Structures are given as structure tokens and as C-alpha cells.
């Protein structure tokens, strides 16, 4: 069965390119959400195998969304990868300290995004 990935990002371009990449290159099923609140709802309903979560979003930002996901029993075990534009080392440490599976950076290469996700999550495919 194909992996199911949820992308939470307020930027439509990023959602679309990431979804295109993961569907086309890896054959994964992709769900998208444009806000932290919508993402939490989709995660509860669909139980994806992993979540790609933007850091800087209006309203509920990525770290807040992550903490909410961890507090919900149905979503607490889903690995979350934070996706952010290039940041300073201090920010990267702050994000890593949250307990996310990994921190990945924009801009990403659409041709290798799936491979990078699979690698950090220890998945064999892609």
C-alpha cells in the first residue's frame, strides 16, 4: 500500500510542488492542508504515515501545530518533519528540540524530496 503523506503549508505553490513531487517520484498518496488547524483535522481523520509541516504560517505556526498534534492521541505517534526556509543554527536547534523527526529546508529539490523524506524516516522505498 502506498505511503500517505500530509503536507501542511500556507503557501499554495509549496503545497502543489511538494505534492506533485511526492506523488510523481515516489507514488505516495498526498493530502494537503493550508493551515495548522486544517492540518490537524486532516491528520485526525486520515492518520497519514508522516506529516510535512511548514514552520512559518499565519495563525497557528508549525511548532504550535506540532505540539497540538502531539497532544492528540490519534496523531501523537505520526512522525513530523518541519519544513522551513533556511534558518540560523539556533533556530534549527530550537526546532529539533521540539521532538520532530527532522527539519528540512526550502527551497527543496522536487526530484529528491521523496528520497530525503524516506531517508530521514528510515523508509526503504523512494
Amino acid at each position, binding site marked *: 500500500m502506498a505511503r500517505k503523506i500530509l503536507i501542511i503549508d500556507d503557501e499554495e*505553490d509549496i503545497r502543489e510542488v511538494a505534492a506533485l513531487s511526492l506523488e510523481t517520484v515516489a507514488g505516495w498518496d498526498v493530502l494537503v492542508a493550508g493551515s495548522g488547524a486544517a492540518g490537524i483535522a486532516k491528520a485526525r481523520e486520515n492518520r497519514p504515515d508522516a506529516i510535512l509541516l511548514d514552520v512559518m504560517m499565519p495563525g497557528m505556526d508549525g511548532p504550535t501545530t506540532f505540539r497540538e498534534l502531539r497532544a492528540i492521541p490519534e496523531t501523537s505517534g505520526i512522525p513530523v518533519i518541519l519544513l522551513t526556509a533556511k534558518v540560523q543554527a539556533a533556530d534549527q536547534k530550537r526546532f529539533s528540540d521540539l521532538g520532530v523527526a527532522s527539519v528540512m529546508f*526550502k527551497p527543496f529539490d522536487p*526530484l529528491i524530496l521523496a528520497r530525503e523524506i524516506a531517508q530521514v524516516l528510515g523508509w526503504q522505498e523512494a
Partner: protein
Amino acid sequence: MSGTAAEKIASRLAELWQTSRPTILERMLALHTAEEALAANPLDQEARDRGREAAHKLSGVLGIFGLPQGSELASALEETLKSPEPLLPSDLATLKTRIAELDAVIAAKSPQ
């Protein structure tokens, strides 16, 4: 990976570049507006925040469309605007130069 997957992604990216250009140009306008406001008042924190947000968004997206230099320039702008230090005249001059360079990078790709 098959050539077909790479071609499909490249083709869709070219389409997306066209639909994304207005948003990218809006962000450039936000950067210009912030730079002008900061030139008038280097302590204008609201202008600084608006400029930083626009730079952050540009840095995340331009490289995806094959403009890594654009992402680097936007990232450098974001760092300058994010710094807690007051902006010096030399910082303002650098901002202006980098924004102009970013304009040129985007213009060189548009329209595709």
C-alpha cells in the same frame, strides 16, 4: 527515477511559475515598500517585520523554480531584517542593493 517523472515535474513547474509570478511580484513590492519605509525611519519595526516575512517566503520558493541565487539573496535579506540590531546606513544600502539584485534575478526568468 524515470525521465517521464522529471519531465512531468519540470512541465508543471513551468506552468506554476506563470501562476506564481503575481504573488512573487507582490512580495517584491512588499520588500521595496519596507526598504523605503526603513530608509525614512530605520526604527520602523512594522516595516522591518513585513519585509522579513516577504523575504522569508521568497527564500523558500524561488529555488524551487530554479532560482537558487534568488533564494540566497532573499535569505540574506531576511537575516538582515531579522537581526535585533538597529539598521545602520550601510545595512540600508545593502538592503537596497540586494533587493535590486533580486529584482534582476526574477526579471531574467520572467516571462518563461
